[in-house]
Each structure stands twice: as C-alpha cells, then as structure tokens.
C-alpha cells in the first residue's frame, strides 16, 4: 500500500510539473513585436573557431550594429540529427525570427523543410545550393579560387619548394580547398612538393574542432621539411597556427583574415589568409531581407565580386608577391585560368 502511495505521489509530481509548465507556457508564446529579429544557427564547431563560424558571427554583429536589429545565434551539437536542426529552425521561426540564416551544408535538408513550412519567413543557407525555394537564398563561395591564390602565395614564399596542407575533415567541401591550393602552387612551380593531411575522415567531424590534432598534423609537415602550411580546418586551425609559431615557419589562414584575429606574437608567421566573406554574405542577405529585396535561389561569391580573396594584412610578408597574385586573380576572373574543384 505504501509502495502504491509512493508511486502515485511520483506520478502526481510529474503531472503537476507538466501542468505548471503548460500553464505558464501560454504567456510566453508569440514573440514577434514588430521590429525584425535575425536568427542564425551554427554548424558544429560553433562560435570561437576564429574561422568559418566566427565569420558568420561577425556578419551578425554588423547586422546588430549597423541595422540596429535584435540578433540571436544558436549552436549545433556534434551528435545531433536532422530533426534537431529542424527543431532549431522551427523554434526560431515560431519565435518570430525573420530572416533566419543556417550556417553550413549540414542544414540543407532541415532548412528546405522549415522554409517550406514557413513561406513568410526569409531563410538563407551558407555553403549549400541543393534546394530551390522562393524564400530560401543559397549563399555559396568559390573556395577553390581563394585557395588557388593561397597556393600561389605559398609557392612564392617557400624557400624549400616544399609546402603543406592540413584539412579538417576529408569531405567534398574541404577537398575544394585542397584542389585550388595544389593547382595554385603548381601554377607557380610545377615541381613543388606538397604534403596533404586530413585530420579526420567523415563521419568523424571532430577534425574541425580539435586544435591538438591540427597542431600534430602541421608539426609532421614542418618536420618533413615544409616551410609553409595552409589549413582549412575550422577551429583545429588554431593548432596549425600554434605549430607554425613553435617552428617559426609560415602558415596560411582560412575563411577569416586570421592575421587580424591572431595574437601579436603569432602575426609574423601568418603569410596571408584565403578569405571567404561569410560575414559580408550574411550582412548583405539580412539587409536585402529587411528591405524586402531578398530572392530565392543562389548567390555565388567569387573573386570577381570580391566574395572570396586573399588577405594583404601582413604587408611585410605578402607585399612583395601582391603584384603577381593580383595578376593571377585577374586571370581567374577573366577565365584564363580555370581552377579545379576536385583534387
């Protein structure tokens, strides 16, 4: 009898908790209060990678400052399913966020479903163009073009004719970086030795979030005689930069201008960065969405529209190669050089 009572009590507790929650829930629903609120959902890795996701965040910050809009960013978890991504986007749509930006190709399926469910909300996805919906803008980048210039810069700067590449996860996106980098380096010096390393293979995506293994991979390449290493490894790239500093060798950053985010003692070793202006893409999309001019379909960012490029912040190192690099850049824009997208 006492057992039964305790069970009943436990049950009552749960019910009470549920009822209490449900009751209070009624008051908090319905967010939208006129002004546009901008939502942004990250890929795994999240903020703090000083690279891809941080670039998206900078765009969001710019939105908050210059457009004076309320912004909210939500991070993904490493082992989540598509359903979690759907739920995240649905939550933002229900809470009145509009426009909503999904960062990373992993959102492809989720954003297609939610965009169809909320036709009045403007969505964007970075790094994916699999979907074609009137209220979904695909923001894609010609990473291989920026990587081509990074490869050329590496080949110009190397003294050993030996350079390296550290990729985070060996997936088609990062292979685009590799392909461009190799093509650029070989364009300058067909006989150059290029070491290629990937930190992990899919489905293991920790290669984007593991600075220690990034450092180990880069250390291996410096030990083997490489004197410039380019990384496309998200947050793991912080380890690659550490290795460069420890070995007093050069490193090329990715996505953001990593010279600007680096510590002063790291800066002398950062030759350049293959920049992917996710921040500009995010900002321009939000601006368009707020003004009502955002359209469905694909917006491609490449060298021609300055959506990708190489950074000139480290004038001491990159200055002497700028002329050559700019010439290559023009040749790519003019179509004289075709950059491969697969290794």
């Amino acid at each position, binding site marked *: 009898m006492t057992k039964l009572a305790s069970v009943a009590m436990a049950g009552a507790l749960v019910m009470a908790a549920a009822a209490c929650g449900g009751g209070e829930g009624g008051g908090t*629903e319905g967010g939208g209060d006129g002004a546009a609120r901008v939502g942004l959902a990250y890929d795994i890795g999240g903020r703090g990678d000083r690279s891809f996701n941080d670039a998206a965040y900078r765009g969001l910050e710019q939105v908050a400052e210059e457009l004076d809009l309320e912004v909210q960013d939500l991070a993904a978890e490493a082992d989540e399913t598509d359903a979690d991504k759907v*739920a995240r986007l649905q939550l933002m749509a229900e809470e009145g966020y509009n426009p909503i930006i999904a960062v990373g190709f992993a959102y492809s399926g989720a954003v297609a479903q939610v965009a169809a469910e909320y036709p009045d909300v403007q969505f964007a996805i970075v790094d994916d163009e699999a979907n074609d919906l009137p209220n979904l803008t695909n923001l894609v980048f010609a990473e291989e073009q920026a990587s081509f210039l990074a490869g050329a810069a590496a080949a110009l700067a190397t003294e050993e004719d030996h350079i390296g590449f550290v990729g985070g996860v060996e997936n088609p996106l990062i292979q685009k970086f590799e392909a461009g980098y190799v093509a650029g380096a070989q364009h300058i010096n067909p006989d150059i030795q290029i070491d290629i390393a990937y930190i992990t293979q899919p489905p293991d995506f920790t290669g984007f979030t593991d600075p220690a293994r990034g450092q180990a991979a880069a250390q291996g390449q410096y030990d083997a005689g490489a004197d410039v290493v380019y990384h496309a490894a998200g947050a793991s790239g912080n380890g690659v930069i550490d290795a460069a500093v420890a070995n007093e060798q050069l490193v090329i950053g990715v996505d953001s201008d990593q010279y600007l985010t680096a510590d002063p003692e790291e800066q002398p070793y950062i030759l350049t960065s293959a920049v992917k202006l996710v921040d500009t893409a995010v900002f321009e999309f939000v601006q368009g969405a707020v003004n009502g001019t955002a359209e469905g379909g694909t917006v491609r960012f490449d060298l021609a529209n300055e959506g990708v490029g190489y950074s000139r912040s480290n004038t001491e190192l990159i200055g002497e190669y700028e002329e050559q690099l700019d010439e290559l850049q023009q040749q790519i824009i003019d179509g004289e050089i075709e950059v491969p997208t697969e290794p």
Partner: protein
Amino acid sequence: MNDRLSPRVRDRLSSLGLLAAALAASAVIAGAITSAVLLATGVDPGYAFAEMFSYGFRPNSVVAIINQGTTYYIAAIAVAIGFKMKLFNIGVDGQYRLAALLGAAVGGAWVLPPVIHQVVIILVAVMVGGFWAGIAGYLKVARGISEVISTIMLNSIATGITAYLLTEDRLAVQVQGSNNIGTRPIAESGWVPGIPAGFLGANNEIYGLVLLAAAVGVGYWLLVNRTRYGFDLRATGQSATAAAASGVEVKRMVVYSMVISGMVAGLIGMPQLLGASHHYALDFPVGLGFTGIAIALLGRNHPVGIVFAALLWAFLEQSSLALTIHDIPREIVVITQAAIVLTVVVVYEVVHRIGRRMQQQRVGAQLGTAEVA
C-alpha cells in the same frame, strides 16, 4: 490458481512501481542539482524550467521527442541485452553506423517492391550489426579479450570503414548542389511512411518505425522472461560459474548475446534512414550508441523503464532548445542528464532495499500467522 498467481503479479507490479518511484525521485534530485547550478550562474530556475516545459510540450516538440525517443529506445535495448549478461557492449555505436551505411547502400542500389524493399534493408542492417558485434563476442570467448576493449576498437574501425566506403568511387554519390555526400538515395518503395500527428496538432510526422521500436521492446521482454535462452542469460549474468555448473554453456551464451545485441543495434538507424533521410550521408547522426548506454542504465534494463528513460532523455534534449533562445546555455541539460543517471543508481538501490525489507516483513508476518493457525 488466482491466489497462487497474484503474489507474483503483485511482485512484478511492485518492482515496476519501485522503478517508477526511483526514476521520479532521481528526477527530483537532478532537478534540484540543476536548479543549484542555474542559481549559481544567475538564472532563475523557475523561469528556465517553465520555458523548457512550455516549449517541450508544444505539438511539434512532442512529435520530435517521440521520434528521438524511438531511436534512443532501440539503442538502449541493444545495450540492455548485453547488460543482462554483464556484457558491456560499448560497440553499439559502431554497429548501428555500419549497419545503417550498408543497409542504405543496398536499399539505394536496387528498387524492389514495397514491403520487400524495407524488409531487405532492415535484414541487411540486422545482419551487419550482428556480425560486427559477433566479432567482439568471438574474440572474448576464443581469445579472452574483454568486450569493452574490442568493441571500442571496433567502433574506430567502423568509422574507418565508413570513411573508406563513403567516397564517390565506392558507395557514395555527391548530393546535387551540396557539399554533402551520401549513398544513393533509397527509392520511395523503400520508405516507411510517417504517422500524421494531426491529432496532436503537429504538422511533423511520427516515424512509422515507432512500431518497430515497440516490437523490439516486446521481443526483448519475451526473450528475457519467456524463453530458455532468457533464463540462461539471466542466470549467467548473476553468476557465470553457477550457470556453468547447472549446464549452461557460458561461452556460447556470450557469443549469442553479443550477436543479438548487435542485431538490435543494427535497427537503431532504421527509423531515421527509412523515415526521414533516405540515404546515409555525412550528416547521419552519430553517438547514439553511447546515449543508449546512459538510457539503459536509467531504465534499469527494463523494457518499460527504458520507454520512460528514453522519452525523458529526448524531452530534456528537445526542450533545452528553448533555453538557447533566452541565452541560457543548453549544456545545463547535460548536467541534468548526468545527475539523473548517477542518482538513479543510488536511489534505486535505496528503494530496492526498502522494498526487500517490506517483503521480508510481509513474509515474516504471514509465517507468523501460519504458525499460530
């Protein structure tokens, strides 16, 4: 007859009741721990919980919780089969990933008539999962290698094999316009339609394979409680030497248990694969096997207990989304989950002792009255 049966039924009911009480008590304790952490970080726990409940009980959230719970349930049952025999199958993770990959590859390679198509995919997944777990079972009985070590290593090997196979020269095709690659999509004849959840007011659908999870639960209960194998399993789990002395072939039991655990593990990816994604791609969920371990512990390896544990787990994960939008770190839920798993072990033991003492008193009282009569 009725009189003879009723004590057993009563015992079973009371053990289920104890389980529910232990779960509820540990949920309360975990809630208190979470509240303390929230208070320490300057968040009003009442506000945080209210937000979680309000979001967690929205129709779409309920559907998401049921779907996620379905997957967790199968994962936890796979782990529980090993636990019943004191086998620690940490390899459920690798088993289901490999099973889902090869099941998806076979399902995408051919278009078969409906029903046959789904059955073929599921059978392939079950066989792959069972085979992968069977390796660990074989190594344990033939070479004496602890299944803990071998299954962890087999997880890594499964990751490596997946990376090898999931390339464009082998099983994968590039998803059009995307940076994703996956197996060839399964034709519609191989899909399992969802159950419309309009009755909950939701526009998302419940996985059709929620029924598969239910069947797995019933099958698990029958296997453990109603078969010779189940008896041997429990006996071996309680004392391998005693079981061996009474004629149970312990080595064979180890291999069987690992294989069956792996076969169930092969089903984990099926609701997601056949109900939602229809191909195995880079974004297929990983880590479900480890979640299954926690949920099996929480549900005390009981087929009904695991239902509650899986739903609770899924509820916490889903409802924690509401926290992020109010700038409360959702990792707080991980603390809740960890606290629940830890406290449930302790609380269950305490409740179990109380129950045993009460049983002894009852038996003592009955014996006492019998003597008087």
